């Protein structure tokens, strides 16, 4: 059923949280397909289920019901350790609050995913330097995170997400902590990565201006997809 360029296929995905006696439906019956090379924006107000969806797609969490296929593999039934392997090899995360290790250089932060896969020390450094140059941070490799501006920190985070050549890049409000100009620069980086390297990117945002760079936009409300746009 999967053709060659389908990256993500979600089938009737549900996520139900039990808070005491009451059940909260964070996601309700989501079915969607993302193709390789897509740039998708997920939009919606807070509490609409954006983050829950991101966590499931990012293999940090598992759906209560439904199936999730990544590159044809049903990841919704994998155990914790296998999910960690998938996160390591196939997924790159960029967070709103950067999530870099403090008091650590840009290079070491970028190397981090490679520490958990079988890459030798020399190769690790090579690939980390390459990823850093891709986001325009040549010459800042040995700066510590607290010596970098917000925009630069987010570039390090992008470099880190790219360093293991993932199939999918997930960005959760990547411009939320940045000023408009810097935010635009970061979005440009995503756009270039998508167009030139054909990397699949899913962008969670509530700013429609930023979502406009995406070819496809879906709107979530109360855990359901309420609208889809193409451009």
């Amino acid at each position, binding site marked *: 059923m999967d053709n060659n360029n389908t990256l993500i296929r979600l089938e009737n995905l549900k996520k139900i949280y039990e808070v005491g006696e009451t059940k909260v439906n964070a996601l309700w019956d989501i079915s969607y397909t993302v193709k390789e090379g897509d740039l998708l924006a997920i939009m919606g107000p807070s509490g609409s289920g954006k983050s829950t969806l991101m966590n499931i797609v990012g293999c940090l969490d598992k759906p209560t019901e439904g199936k999730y296929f990544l590159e044809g593999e049903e990841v919704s039934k994998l155990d914790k*350790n296998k999910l*960690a392997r998938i996160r390591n090899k196939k997924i790159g*995360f960029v967070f709103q609050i950067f999530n870099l290790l403090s008091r650590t250089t840009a290079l070491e932060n970028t190397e981090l995913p490679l520490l958990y896969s079988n890459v030798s020390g020399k190769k690790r450094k090579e690939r980390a330097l390459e990823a850093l140059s891709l986001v325009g941070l040549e010459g800042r490799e040995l700066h510590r995170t607290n010596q970098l501006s917000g925009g630069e920190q987010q570039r390090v985070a992008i470099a880190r997400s790219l360093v293991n050549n993932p199939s999918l890049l997930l960005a959760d409000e990547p411009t939320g902590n940045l000023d408009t100009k810097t935010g635009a620069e970061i979005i440009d980086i995503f756009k270039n990565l998508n167009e030139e390297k054909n990397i699949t990117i899913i962008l969670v945002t509530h700013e429609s201006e930023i979502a406009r760079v995406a070819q496809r936009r879906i709107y979530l409300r109360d855990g359901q997809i309420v609208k889809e746009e193409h451009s």
Partner: protein
Amino acid sequence: MKIARIIQVSIRALSRNKMRSFLTALGIIIGVGAVIAMVSIGQGAKRAVEDRFNSMGTNLLFIHAGSLSFRGRHGGGGTYQNLTPGDAEAIQERADAVQYISPNVSTRAQTIYGNKNWNTSIQGVGAKYTEIRNWEIEEGIFFDENMVKSGQKVCVLGSEVKNNLFEGEYPIGKIIRIKKIPFRIIGVLRSKGESGGWFNRDDMIVIPYTTAQRRLIGMTDRVQSIDVSAVSTARTNEALEQIEEILRIQHKIAPGAEDDFHVSNMSEIAEGAAESTQILTILLGGIASVSLLVGGIGIMNIMLVSVTERIREIGIRMSVGAREKDILLQFLTEAIVLSVLGGIIGIGVGVATSRLISHFAGWKTLVSVGAIALAFLFSGSVGIFFGFYPARKASKLDPIEALRYE
């Protein structure tokens, strides 16, 4: 992850917080250092005691009146005396495993020289006493068999008596009064040093036992004890058996009846003393181990705080693909690295401390390889034991909550 990489990750994490890492390791440093220093003091004391006994001679036998195990029967040492000069002669003649023999009597007396006086121990001994005890003459001579037989009023001074009565004056040939009886000084003993608190072996005057019997004690047919040296250490037990046999005949003890004397063996006494210092070593080491334990609890405490403080870091690591096992091993390795590094530094501190103690306090210390190995192993296990719980706690965190943690 390979072990080398885990260690690399752990050291990176530890070096991001050098001060905290050092303070955590400090508990182990002090613990290991204390164990090594304390055990080295105990071992040194043991060695010192052994050396002291060896210098006295392991071929020595002491004959005392009465049985030491029924001491209560005597009603105070010295009141019941049944050893005679004749016993000593019989042993000398008949026991072929015996080399030298010296009948002894002792008392305390006030001694006077010029305008100085000094209360000291007076030892009446035989002519071979210095050979039996390995004592050396600093100046002059020791009395010979003839002087003993004729009961001459000659004496040999211990170095402390000489210092107190003569203060630099040349003593040989001078006359001192012991219980108002004049004695001619014919020699001075070489200082033997403190003997470890029993009595000062330099604070004594040695005179022929015959003279002591007649002039100072007024009892010529009894001696208080007899010191014997066997011809060799190997024949000490043989000499002991011969002496017992001879004395039983001398004292007319019926077969099966108990001895009315006791022969003690120097090596037995030495073993007893060494055993008591061994207990001291165990005691000191035990007390020091408590500080090692406290150091381990310190590591657990800091690692627990560290896990809470680094929840975000753990979340980040999980999000980029760290498995539970990776996080567990990282935190466990951090604890082990801290305690092993602390252990290595602690060994240095312990060795240095024991050197300082032996330098300034003048105590003999002995750093044994066994103590070092034990302290090192113990500190490593402390790291594993107290590091495991915090590491497990870290590895069980939920990545989503860890990433969201403020």
